[in-house]
Protein backbone atom coordinates (compact mmCIF):
# COMPACT_ATOMS: atom_id res chain seq x y z
CA UNK A 1 0.00 0.00 0.00
CA UNK A 2 2.71 2.48 0.97
CA UNK A 3 4.78 1.47 -2.02
CA UNK A 4 1.77 2.04 -4.28
CA UNK A 5 1.10 5.36 -2.56
CA UNK A 6 4.69 6.52 -2.96
CA UNK A 7 4.86 5.68 -6.63
CA UNK A 8 1.48 7.26 -7.40
CA UNK A 9 1.60 10.26 -5.08
CA UNK A 10 1.47 12.77 -7.93
CA UNK A 11 -1.59 11.15 -9.45
CA UNK A 12 -3.33 10.97 -6.06
CA UNK A 13 -2.72 14.67 -5.45
CA UNK A 14 -3.80 15.50 -9.01
CA UNK A 15 -7.05 13.63 -8.46
CA UNK A 16 -7.99 15.95 -5.62
CA UNK A 17 -6.92 19.07 -7.51
CA UNK A 18 -8.90 17.77 -10.50
CA UNK A 19 -11.91 17.20 -8.29
CA UNK A 20 -11.80 20.77 -6.96
CA UNK A 21 -11.38 22.17 -10.48
CA UNK A 22 -14.27 20.07 -11.82
CA UNK A 23 -16.46 21.21 -8.92
CA UNK A 24 -15.67 24.85 -9.71
CA UNK A 25 -17.36 24.33 -13.09
CA UNK A 26 -20.08 22.01 -11.82
CA UNK A 27 -21.43 24.25 -9.05
CA UNK A 28 -22.53 27.07 -11.39
CA UNK A 29 -24.07 24.52 -13.78
CA UNK A 30 -26.14 23.17 -10.88
CA UNK A 31 -27.38 26.74 -10.35
CA UNK A 32 -28.25 26.98 -14.03
CA UNK A 33 -25.36 29.36 -14.67
CA UNK A 34 -23.31 28.28 -17.67
CA UNK A 35 -20.01 29.74 -16.47
CA UNK A 36 -16.45 28.50 -17.01
CA UNK A 37 -14.94 31.32 -14.96
CA UNK A 38 -13.77 28.77 -12.35
CA UNK A 39 -10.79 27.99 -14.60
CA UNK A 40 -9.73 31.64 -14.84
CA UNK A 41 -10.03 31.81 -11.06
CA UNK A 42 -7.83 28.71 -10.87
CA UNK A 43 -5.20 30.83 -12.63
CA UNK A 44 -5.76 33.79 -10.31
CA UNK A 45 -5.51 31.52 -7.26
CA UNK A 46 -2.41 29.73 -8.52
CA UNK A 47 -0.50 32.86 -9.52
CA UNK A 48 -1.44 34.87 -6.43
CA UNK A 49 -0.40 32.02 -4.15
CA UNK A 50 2.88 31.52 -6.02
CA UNK A 51 3.75 35.23 -6.08
CA UNK A 52 3.06 35.66 -2.37
CA UNK A 53 4.96 32.53 -1.32
CA UNK A 54 7.97 33.26 -3.55
CA UNK A 55 8.24 37.06 -3.19
CA UNK A 56 6.84 37.71 0.28
CA UNK A 57 7.51 34.40 1.95
CA UNK A 58 4.08 34.27 3.63
CA UNK A 59 2.94 30.91 5.04
CA UNK A 60 1.09 28.74 2.52
CA UNK A 61 -2.45 28.95 4.03
CA UNK A 62 -2.32 32.78 4.10
CA UNK A 63 -1.08 32.91 0.51
CA UNK A 64 -3.83 30.58 -0.64
CA UNK A 65 -6.39 32.55 1.35
CA UNK A 66 -5.29 35.74 -0.40
CA UNK A 67 -5.57 34.03 -3.77
CA UNK A 68 -9.06 32.77 -2.98
CA UNK A 69 -10.14 36.18 -1.73
CA UNK A 70 -8.90 37.90 -4.88
CA UNK A 71 -10.64 35.26 -7.01
CA UNK A 72 -13.90 35.61 -5.06
CA UNK A 73 -13.90 39.37 -5.57
CA UNK A 74 -13.15 38.85 -9.27
CA UNK A 75 -15.96 36.28 -9.48
CA UNK A 76 -18.41 38.66 -7.85
CA UNK A 77 -17.46 41.48 -10.23
CA UNK A 78 -17.84 39.10 -13.18
CA UNK A 79 -21.31 38.18 -11.93
CA UNK A 80 -22.23 41.87 -11.92
CA UNK A 81 -20.78 42.54 -15.36
CA UNK A 82 -22.27 39.41 -16.95
CA UNK A 83 -25.58 39.50 -15.06
CA UNK A 84 -27.62 39.90 -18.24
CA UNK A 85 -25.97 37.06 -20.13
CA UNK A 86 -27.17 33.48 -20.07
CA UNK A 87 -26.68 30.15 -21.84
CA UNK A 88 -24.06 29.89 -24.55
CA UNK A 89 -23.27 33.61 -24.49
CA UNK A 90 -22.36 33.42 -20.84
CA UNK A 91 -20.24 30.35 -21.60
CA UNK A 92 -18.37 32.25 -24.32
CA UNK A 93 -17.88 35.34 -22.17
CA UNK A 94 -16.46 33.32 -19.29
CA UNK A 95 -14.12 31.36 -21.56
CA UNK A 96 -12.94 34.73 -22.83
CA UNK A 97 -12.28 35.67 -19.21
CA UNK A 98 -10.21 32.48 -18.77
CA UNK A 99 -8.16 33.35 -21.86
CA UNK A 100 -7.69 36.94 -20.67
CA UNK A 101 -6.21 35.62 -17.41
CA UNK A 102 -3.81 33.47 -19.46
CA UNK A 103 -2.76 36.41 -21.62
CA UNK A 104 -2.28 38.70 -18.63
CA UNK A 105 -0.01 36.27 -16.78
CA UNK A 106 1.93 35.48 -19.97
CA UNK A 107 2.67 39.20 -20.35
CA UNK A 108 3.06 40.04 -16.68
CA UNK A 109 6.83 40.52 -16.92
CA UNK A 110 8.83 39.75 -13.80
CA UNK A 111 5.81 39.60 -11.53
CA UNK A 112 4.31 36.53 -13.23
CA UNK A 113 7.46 35.23 -14.91
CA UNK A 114 6.07 35.74 -18.42
CA UNK A 115 5.62 32.74 -20.72
CA UNK A 116 7.88 30.48 -18.65
CA UNK A 117 5.92 31.08 -15.46
CA UNK A 118 7.00 30.92 -11.83
CA UNK A 119 9.23 28.41 -10.07
CA UNK A 120 10.05 27.57 -6.49
CA UNK A 121 6.80 28.03 -4.60
CA UNK A 122 8.01 25.75 -1.85
CA UNK A 123 5.82 24.92 1.13
CA UNK A 124 4.95 22.03 3.43
CA UNK A 125 1.55 21.50 1.82
CA UNK A 126 1.05 17.81 1.08
CA UNK A 127 -1.50 15.17 0.17
CA UNK A 128 -3.16 15.30 3.59
CA UNK A 129 -4.02 18.99 3.21
CA UNK A 130 -5.53 18.72 -0.24
CA UNK A 131 -7.39 15.54 0.72
CA UNK A 132 -8.87 17.06 3.87
CA UNK A 133 -9.85 20.26 2.06
CA UNK A 134 -11.53 18.21 -0.66
CA UNK A 135 -13.41 16.25 2.00
CA UNK A 136 -14.70 19.42 3.66
CA UNK A 137 -15.70 20.87 0.29
CA UNK A 138 -17.51 17.68 -0.71
CA UNK A 139 -19.41 17.53 2.59
CA UNK A 140 -20.51 21.16 2.25
CA UNK A 141 -21.58 20.67 -1.37
CA UNK A 142 -23.42 17.43 -0.52
CA UNK A 143 -25.36 19.37 2.11
CA UNK A 144 -26.10 22.12 -0.41
CA UNK A 145 -27.77 19.54 -2.66
CA UNK A 146 -30.43 18.82 0.00
CA UNK A 147 -33.11 20.54 2.01
CA UNK A 148 -34.38 24.09 1.56
CA UNK A 149 -31.23 25.37 -0.05
CA UNK A 150 -31.01 22.47 -2.51
CA UNK A 151 -34.66 22.96 -3.46
CA UNK A 152 -34.09 26.65 -4.16
CA UNK A 153 -31.01 25.98 -6.25
CA UNK A 154 -33.03 23.50 -8.27
CA UNK A 155 -35.87 26.00 -8.69
CA UNK A 156 -33.47 28.73 -9.84
CA UNK A 157 -31.98 26.33 -12.40
CA UNK A 158 -35.23 24.81 -13.68
CA UNK A 159 -37.21 28.03 -14.12
CA UNK A 160 -35.49 31.25 -12.99
CA UNK A 161 -38.44 33.44 -13.92
CA UNK A 162 -40.91 31.33 -11.95
CA UNK A 163 -38.50 31.21 -9.02
CA UNK A 164 -38.36 35.01 -9.13
CA UNK A 165 -42.16 35.15 -9.18
CA UNK A 166 -42.09 33.03 -6.00
CA UNK A 167 -39.95 35.63 -4.31
CA UNK A 168 -36.57 33.91 -4.69
CA UNK A 169 -33.74 36.44 -5.19
CA UNK A 170 -32.52 34.77 -8.38
CA UNK A 171 -29.82 37.39 -8.93
CA UNK A 172 -28.27 36.68 -5.53
CA UNK A 173 -28.21 32.95 -6.23
CA UNK A 174 -26.47 33.56 -9.55
CA UNK A 175 -23.90 35.77 -7.84
CA UNK A 176 -23.40 33.13 -5.19
CA UNK A 177 -22.73 30.57 -7.95
CA UNK A 178 -19.98 32.79 -9.38
CA UNK A 179 -18.37 33.32 -5.99
CA UNK A 180 -18.44 29.64 -4.95
CA UNK A 181 -17.04 28.70 -8.36
CA UNK A 182 -14.25 31.28 -7.96
CA UNK A 183 -13.38 30.06 -4.46
CA UNK A 184 -13.21 26.42 -5.59
CA UNK A 185 -11.19 27.27 -8.69
CA UNK A 186 -8.69 29.39 -6.75
CA UNK A 187 -8.43 26.70 -4.08
CA UNK A 188 -7.61 24.11 -6.75
CA UNK A 189 -5.07 26.44 -8.38
CA UNK A 190 -3.45 27.29 -5.04
CA UNK A 191 -3.04 23.64 -4.11
CA UNK A 192 -1.69 22.75 -7.51
CA UNK A 193 1.05 25.38 -7.42
CA UNK A 194 2.02 24.50 -3.84
CA UNK A 195 2.16 20.77 -4.59
CA UNK A 196 4.05 21.18 -7.91
CA UNK A 197 5.99 24.36 -6.89
CA UNK A 198 5.60 25.75 -10.45
CA UNK A 199 2.96 27.39 -12.59
CA UNK A 200 3.00 28.50 -16.23
CA UNK A 201 0.42 30.12 -18.53
CA UNK A 202 0.02 26.84 -20.43
CA UNK A 203 -1.27 25.17 -17.25
CA UNK A 204 -4.33 27.39 -17.01
CA UNK A 205 -5.48 27.79 -20.59
CA UNK A 206 -8.24 26.33 -22.66
CA UNK A 207 -7.02 22.77 -22.09
CA UNK A 208 -7.92 23.05 -18.40
CA UNK A 209 -11.47 24.11 -19.34
CA UNK A 210 -11.80 21.05 -21.56
CA UNK A 211 -10.35 18.72 -18.95
CA UNK A 212 -12.66 19.94 -16.16
CA UNK A 213 -15.68 19.94 -18.43
CA UNK A 214 -14.82 16.42 -19.62
CA UNK A 215 -14.73 15.26 -16.01
CA UNK A 216 -18.23 16.48 -15.24
CA UNK A 217 -19.77 15.44 -18.55
CA UNK A 218 -18.50 11.86 -18.25
CA UNK A 219 -18.86 11.68 -14.47
CA UNK A 220 -22.20 13.44 -14.14
CA UNK A 221 -23.17 17.08 -13.72
CA UNK A 222 -25.95 16.64 -11.18
CA UNK A 223 -23.97 15.93 -8.04
CA UNK A 224 -20.51 16.24 -6.50
CA UNK A 225 -20.20 12.46 -6.84
CA UNK A 226 -20.22 12.84 -10.62
CA UNK A 227 -17.31 15.28 -10.46
CA UNK A 228 -15.46 12.84 -8.24
CA UNK A 229 -15.96 9.92 -10.65
CA UNK A 230 -14.83 12.13 -13.54
CA UNK A 231 -11.78 13.40 -11.66
CA UNK A 232 -10.64 9.86 -10.86
CA UNK A 233 -11.12 8.65 -14.43
CA UNK A 234 -9.45 11.53 -16.22
CA UNK A 235 -6.53 11.80 -13.84
CA UNK A 236 -5.68 8.11 -14.13
CA UNK A 237 -6.72 7.45 -17.71
CA UNK A 238 -3.62 9.02 -19.30
CA UNK A 239 -1.34 6.57 -17.47
CA UNK A 240 -3.56 3.69 -18.61
CA UNK A 241 -3.66 4.99 -22.17
CA UNK A 242 0.10 5.54 -22.43
CA UNK A 243 0.43 2.67 -24.90
CA UNK A 244 -1.82 4.49 -27.38
CA UNK A 245 0.65 7.34 -27.83
CA UNK A 246 -0.65 10.03 -30.16
CA UNK A 247 -4.08 8.36 -30.36
CA UNK A 248 -4.76 9.35 -26.76
CA UNK A 249 -6.57 12.56 -27.69
CA UNK A 250 -8.77 10.70 -30.17
CA UNK A 251 -9.75 8.17 -27.49
CA UNK A 252 -10.59 11.06 -25.13
CA UNK A 253 -12.80 12.68 -27.74
CA UNK A 254 -14.63 9.44 -28.46
CA UNK A 255 -15.30 8.86 -24.73
CA UNK A 256 -16.71 12.36 -24.28
CA UNK A 257 -18.88 12.09 -27.40
CA UNK A 258 -20.23 8.70 -26.33
CA UNK A 259 -20.99 9.97 -22.83
CA UNK A 260 -22.73 13.10 -24.10
CA UNK A 261 -24.90 11.16 -26.56
CA UNK A 262 -25.84 8.02 -24.65
CA UNK A 263 -25.44 8.82 -20.97
CA UNK A 264 -26.45 12.46 -20.47
CA UNK A 265 -26.59 11.83 -16.72
CA UNK A 266 -22.94 10.74 -16.81
CA UNK A 267 -21.58 7.61 -15.14
CA UNK A 268 -23.22 8.74 -11.91
CA UNK A 269 -26.59 8.60 -13.66
CA UNK A 270 -25.86 5.09 -14.92
CA UNK A 271 -24.87 3.95 -11.44
CA UNK A 272 -27.89 5.45 -9.66
CA UNK A 273 -30.27 4.04 -12.29
CA UNK A 274 -28.73 0.61 -11.89
CA UNK A 275 -28.97 0.88 -8.10
CA UNK A 276 -32.63 1.89 -8.30
CA UNK A 277 -33.61 -0.95 -10.61
CA UNK A 278 -31.72 -3.38 -8.36
CA UNK A 279 -33.65 -2.02 -5.36
CA UNK A 280 -36.92 -2.29 -7.24
CA UNK A 281 -36.33 -5.87 -8.32
CA UNK A 282 -35.29 -6.81 -4.78
CA UNK A 283 -38.42 -5.22 -3.37
CA UNK A 284 -40.67 -6.82 -5.95
CA UNK A 285 -39.16 -10.27 -5.29
CA UNK A 286 -38.78 -10.03 -1.53
CA UNK A 287 -42.02 -8.64 -0.16
CA UNK A 288 -45.25 -9.38 -1.99
CA UNK A 289 -47.42 -8.15 0.89
CA UNK A 290 -46.40 -4.52 0.35
CA UNK A 291 -49.12 -2.56 -1.45
CA UNK A 292 -48.31 -1.46 -5.00
CA UNK A 293 -48.51 2.19 -4.00
CA UNK A 294 -45.77 1.86 -1.41
CA UNK A 295 -43.37 0.27 -3.84
CA UNK A 296 -43.93 2.90 -6.48
CA UNK A 297 -43.46 5.88 -4.25
CA UNK A 298 -40.08 4.69 -3.07
CA UNK A 299 -38.55 3.83 -6.39
CA UNK A 300 -39.91 6.34 -8.87
CA UNK A 301 -37.96 9.31 -7.75
CA UNK A 302 -38.95 12.42 -9.66
CA UNK A 303 -35.35 13.43 -10.13
CA UNK A 304 -34.49 10.22 -11.90
CA UNK A 305 -36.76 11.19 -14.78
CA UNK A 306 -35.25 14.53 -15.74
CA UNK A 307 -32.15 15.08 -17.75
CA UNK A 308 -29.46 17.24 -16.20
CA UNK A 309 -29.39 20.91 -17.04
Amino acid at each position, binding site marked *: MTAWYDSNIILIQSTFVGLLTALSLQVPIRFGVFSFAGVGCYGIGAYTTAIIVIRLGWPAPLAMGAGMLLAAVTGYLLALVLSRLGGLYLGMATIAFDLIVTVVVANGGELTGGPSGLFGAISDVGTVHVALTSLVVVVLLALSERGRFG*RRVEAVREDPELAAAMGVEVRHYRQLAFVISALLGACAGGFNVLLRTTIAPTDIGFSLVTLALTMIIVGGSRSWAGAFIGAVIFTWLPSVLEFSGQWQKVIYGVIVALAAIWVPGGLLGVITDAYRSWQRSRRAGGSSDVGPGDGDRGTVSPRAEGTPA
Partner: protein
Amino acid sequence: MFEIRDLHVSYGKVTAVRGMTLSAEPGKVTLVLGANGAGKTTTLRSAAGLHKPDSGSVVLDGETITGLPAHKIVKRGLVLVPEGRHVFAPLTVMENLRMGGYTTARGETGAILDRVFEMFPVLKERQDGAAGLLSGGEQQMLAFGRALMAKPKIMMLDEPSMGLAPTMVDTVLSSIRAMADSGIGVLMVEQNAEAGLEVADDVAVVARGEVVFSGTAKEARSNSSVLRAFLGEAALVSES
Protein backbone atom coordinates in the same frame (compact mmCIF):
# COMPACT_ATOMS: atom_id res chain seq x y z
CA MET B 1 -56.78 47.84 -2.93
CA PHE B 2 -54.41 47.34 -5.80
CA GLU B 3 -53.90 49.74 -8.66
CA ILE B 4 -51.80 49.91 -11.78
CA ARG B 5 -51.79 53.54 -12.95
CA ASP B 6 -50.81 54.78 -16.38
CA LEU B 7 -48.17 52.08 -16.84
CA HIS B 8 -45.80 52.30 -19.81
CA VAL B 9 -43.55 49.37 -20.65
CA SER B 10 -41.27 48.69 -23.59
CA TYR B 11 -38.88 45.99 -24.73
CA GLY B 12 -35.97 47.90 -26.20
CA LYS B 13 -37.52 50.17 -28.82
CA VAL B 14 -40.82 48.31 -28.98
CA THR B 15 -43.55 49.74 -26.77
CA ALA B 16 -45.73 46.95 -25.39
CA VAL B 17 -47.88 48.82 -22.88
CA ARG B 18 -48.90 52.47 -23.20
CA GLY B 19 -50.83 53.96 -20.32
CA MET B 20 -52.39 50.82 -18.81
CA THR B 21 -54.65 51.45 -15.82
CA LEU B 22 -56.14 48.49 -13.94
CA SER B 23 -57.28 47.80 -10.41
CA ALA B 24 -58.30 44.91 -8.19
CA GLU B 25 -59.92 44.70 -4.76
CA PRO B 26 -59.93 42.07 -2.04
CA GLY B 27 -62.74 39.56 -2.49
CA LYS B 28 -63.31 40.43 -6.13
CA VAL B 29 -62.29 38.92 -9.45
CA THR B 30 -61.26 41.44 -12.10
CA LEU B 31 -61.11 40.00 -15.58
CA VAL B 32 -58.76 41.50 -18.17
CA LEU B 33 -59.73 40.71 -21.75
CA GLY B 34 -57.70 41.49 -24.83
CA ALA B 35 -56.30 40.01 -28.01
CA ASN B 36 -52.81 38.54 -28.32
CA GLY B 37 -50.17 41.23 -28.10
CA ALA B 38 -52.45 43.69 -26.28
CA GLY B 39 -49.91 43.93 -23.45
CA LYS B 40 -51.72 41.92 -20.79
CA THR B 41 -48.90 39.59 -19.84
CA THR B 42 -46.35 42.42 -19.97
CA THR B 43 -48.48 44.45 -17.58
CA LEU B 44 -48.68 41.62 -15.06
CA ARG B 45 -44.96 40.85 -15.36
CA SER B 46 -44.07 44.50 -14.81
CA ALA B 47 -46.36 44.77 -11.80
CA ALA B 48 -44.71 41.65 -10.34
CA GLY B 49 -41.25 43.17 -10.72
CA LEU B 50 -40.05 40.79 -13.43
CA HIS B 51 -39.68 43.61 -15.95
CA LYS B 52 -38.95 47.26 -15.32
CA PRO B 53 -41.67 49.65 -16.48
CA ASP B 54 -40.68 52.94 -18.19
CA SER B 55 -43.19 55.01 -16.24
CA GLY B 56 -46.42 54.82 -14.31
CA SER B 57 -47.03 53.38 -10.90
CA VAL B 58 -48.12 50.19 -9.17
CA VAL B 59 -49.79 50.81 -5.82
CA LEU B 60 -50.70 48.20 -3.21
CA ASP B 61 -52.62 49.34 -0.11
CA GLY B 62 -51.45 52.92 -0.57
CA GLU B 63 -47.79 51.99 -0.98
CA THR B 64 -46.02 52.48 -4.27
CA ILE B 65 -44.20 49.29 -5.23
CA THR B 66 -43.25 50.24 -8.80
CA GLY B 67 -39.89 48.87 -9.88
CA LEU B 68 -39.14 47.02 -6.64
CA PRO B 69 -37.30 43.73 -7.11
CA ALA B 70 -39.63 40.74 -7.50
CA HIS B 71 -38.89 39.18 -4.11
CA LYS B 72 -39.84 42.36 -2.26
CA ILE B 73 -43.10 42.62 -4.18
CA VAL B 74 -44.00 39.03 -3.26
CA LYS B 75 -43.33 39.91 0.38
CA ARG B 76 -45.77 42.84 0.17
CA GLY B 77 -48.50 40.41 -0.87
CA LEU B 78 -48.69 40.69 -4.67
CA VAL B 79 -48.13 37.29 -6.29
CA LEU B 80 -48.08 36.38 -9.98
CA VAL B 81 -49.11 32.97 -11.32
CA PRO B 82 -47.42 32.99 -14.75
CA GLU B 83 -49.15 31.62 -17.82
CA GLY B 84 -48.62 28.10 -19.06
CA ARG B 85 -49.11 26.34 -15.71
CA HIS B 86 -45.48 26.71 -14.75
CA VAL B 87 -44.53 24.26 -12.05
CA PHE B 88 -41.07 23.04 -11.08
CA ALA B 89 -41.55 19.72 -12.88
CA PRO B 90 -38.78 17.67 -11.27
CA LEU B 91 -39.68 18.79 -7.74
CA THR B 92 -42.47 17.03 -5.85
CA VAL B 93 -45.85 18.68 -5.25
CA MET B 94 -44.87 19.29 -1.63
CA GLU B 95 -41.53 20.82 -2.62
CA ASN B 96 -43.31 23.11 -5.08
CA LEU B 97 -45.65 24.30 -2.34
CA ARG B 98 -42.74 24.88 0.01
CA MET B 99 -41.04 26.96 -2.71
CA GLY B 100 -44.20 29.08 -2.81
CA GLY B 101 -43.82 29.71 0.91
CA TYR B 102 -40.31 31.04 0.34
CA THR B 103 -41.13 34.48 1.72
CA THR B 104 -43.47 33.22 4.44
CA ALA B 105 -42.24 32.82 8.02
CA ARG B 106 -41.51 29.15 8.77
CA GLY B 107 -43.96 28.97 11.66
CA GLU B 108 -46.87 29.97 9.46
CA THR B 109 -46.36 27.60 6.53
CA GLY B 110 -47.97 24.61 8.29
CA ALA B 111 -51.31 26.36 8.79
CA ILE B 112 -51.35 27.77 5.25
CA LEU B 113 -50.46 24.35 3.86
CA ASP B 114 -53.49 22.85 5.64
CA ARG B 115 -55.74 25.47 4.05
CA VAL B 116 -54.26 24.84 0.59
CA PHE B 117 -54.84 21.09 0.98
CA GLU B 118 -58.39 21.78 2.11
CA MET B 119 -59.01 23.85 -1.00
CA PHE B 120 -57.22 21.46 -3.36
CA PRO B 121 -57.49 17.94 -1.89
CA VAL B 122 -55.85 16.45 -4.98
CA LEU B 123 -52.58 18.14 -4.02
CA LYS B 124 -52.60 16.38 -0.67
CA GLU B 125 -53.10 13.02 -2.36
CA ARG B 126 -50.26 13.62 -4.79
CA GLN B 127 -47.93 15.50 -2.45
CA ASP B 128 -44.95 13.13 -2.86
CA GLY B 129 -45.32 12.76 -6.63
CA ALA B 130 -43.36 14.80 -9.16
CA ALA B 131 -45.22 17.96 -10.17
CA GLY B 132 -44.46 17.23 -13.82
CA LEU B 133 -46.55 14.06 -13.65
CA LEU B 134 -49.76 15.88 -12.65
CA SER B 135 -52.49 16.49 -15.24
CA GLY B 136 -52.84 19.96 -16.73
CA GLY B 137 -55.68 20.94 -14.39
CA GLU B 138 -53.84 19.59 -11.37
CA GLN B 139 -50.74 21.55 -12.32
CA GLN B 140 -52.83 24.71 -12.45
CA MET B 141 -54.20 23.91 -8.97
CA LEU B 142 -50.63 23.41 -7.81
CA ALA B 143 -49.67 26.78 -9.28
CA PHE B 144 -52.56 28.37 -7.35
CA GLY B 145 -51.69 26.50 -4.17
CA ARG B 146 -48.08 27.53 -4.50
CA ALA B 147 -49.09 31.17 -4.90
CA LEU B 148 -51.37 30.93 -1.85
CA MET B 149 -48.37 29.77 0.20
CA ALA B 150 -46.96 33.30 -0.12
CA LYS B 151 -49.99 34.72 1.76
CA PRO B 152 -51.07 36.99 -1.12
CA LYS B 153 -53.40 39.94 -0.73
CA ILE B 154 -53.63 40.18 -4.50
CA MET B 155 -53.08 37.35 -6.97
CA MET B 156 -52.43 38.00 -10.65
CA LEU B 157 -53.41 35.04 -12.82
CA ASP B 158 -52.13 34.90 -16.38
CA GLU B 159 -54.38 32.76 -18.59
CA PRO B 160 -55.34 30.19 -15.97
CA SER B 161 -57.58 28.18 -18.32
CA MET B 162 -55.08 27.98 -21.18
CA GLY B 163 -54.82 24.51 -22.69
CA LEU B 164 -57.14 22.85 -20.19
CA ALA B 165 -59.86 20.31 -20.92
CA PRO B 166 -63.33 21.96 -20.86
CA THR B 167 -64.40 20.18 -17.67
CA MET B 168 -61.18 21.27 -16.00
CA VAL B 169 -61.83 24.89 -16.98
CA ASP B 170 -64.93 24.88 -14.76
CA THR B 171 -63.05 23.39 -11.84
CA VAL B 172 -60.24 25.92 -12.19
CA LEU B 173 -62.63 28.85 -12.46
CA SER B 174 -64.63 27.81 -9.41
CA SER B 175 -61.41 27.56 -7.43
CA ILE B 176 -60.56 31.10 -8.57
CA ARG B 177 -63.95 32.23 -7.27
CA ALA B 178 -63.27 30.40 -4.00
CA MET B 179 -59.90 32.12 -3.60
CA ALA B 180 -61.53 35.52 -4.14
CA ASP B 181 -64.31 34.68 -1.70
CA SER B 182 -61.67 33.93 0.92
CA GLY B 183 -60.71 37.61 0.73
CA ILE B 184 -57.96 37.65 -1.88
CA GLY B 185 -58.14 40.12 -4.75
CA VAL B 186 -57.79 38.41 -8.12
CA LEU B 187 -56.61 40.14 -11.29
CA MET B 188 -57.07 37.62 -14.06
CA VAL B 189 -56.02 37.75 -17.69
CA GLU B 190 -58.06 35.33 -19.76
CA GLN B 191 -58.60 34.56 -23.45
CA ASN B 192 -61.67 32.45 -22.71
CA ALA B 193 -64.00 35.43 -22.21
CA GLU B 194 -67.15 33.41 -21.86
CA ALA B 195 -65.81 31.31 -19.05
CA GLY B 196 -64.02 34.23 -17.43
CA LEU B 197 -67.17 36.37 -17.35
CA GLU B 198 -68.94 33.70 -15.30
CA VAL B 199 -66.73 34.28 -12.27
CA ALA B 200 -65.70 37.91 -12.78
CA ASP B 201 -67.03 40.90 -10.85
CA ASP B 202 -65.33 43.56 -12.94
CA VAL B 203 -64.01 43.58 -16.48
CA ALA B 204 -61.37 45.59 -18.30
CA VAL B 205 -60.82 45.27 -22.03
CA VAL B 206 -57.40 46.18 -23.39
CA ALA B 207 -56.21 46.74 -26.93
CA ARG B 208 -52.82 47.85 -28.25
CA GLY B 209 -51.46 48.48 -24.77
CA GLU B 210 -54.28 50.47 -23.21
CA VAL B 211 -57.68 50.01 -21.60
CA VAL B 212 -60.61 50.54 -23.99
CA PHE B 213 -63.47 49.43 -21.75
CA SER B 214 -63.88 49.03 -18.04
CA GLY B 215 -66.93 48.25 -15.94
CA THR B 216 -68.74 45.51 -14.08
CA ALA B 217 -69.22 42.06 -15.57
CA LYS B 218 -72.88 42.89 -16.11
CA GLU B 219 -72.05 46.04 -18.04
CA ALA B 220 -69.58 44.11 -20.13
CA ARG B 221 -72.24 41.57 -21.02
CA SER B 222 -74.54 44.28 -22.27
CA ASN B 223 -71.84 46.17 -24.15
CA SER B 224 -72.18 45.21 -27.80
CA SER B 225 -68.62 45.97 -28.84
CA VAL B 226 -67.20 43.85 -26.01
CA LEU B 227 -69.51 41.01 -26.92
CA ARG B 228 -68.70 41.22 -30.59
CA ALA B 229 -64.98 41.24 -29.98
CA PHE B 230 -64.80 38.43 -27.45
CA LEU B 231 -67.91 36.30 -27.62
CA GLY B 232 -68.74 36.45 -31.34
CA GLU B 233 -71.81 37.62 -33.25
CA ALA B 234 -74.00 34.78 -32.01
CA ALA B 235 -73.80 35.99 -28.42
CA LEU B 236 -74.80 39.47 -29.55
CA VAL B 237 -77.93 38.18 -31.24
CA SER B 238 -79.02 36.03 -28.33
CA GLU B 239 -78.46 38.82 -25.78
CA SER B 240 -80.50 41.39 -27.72
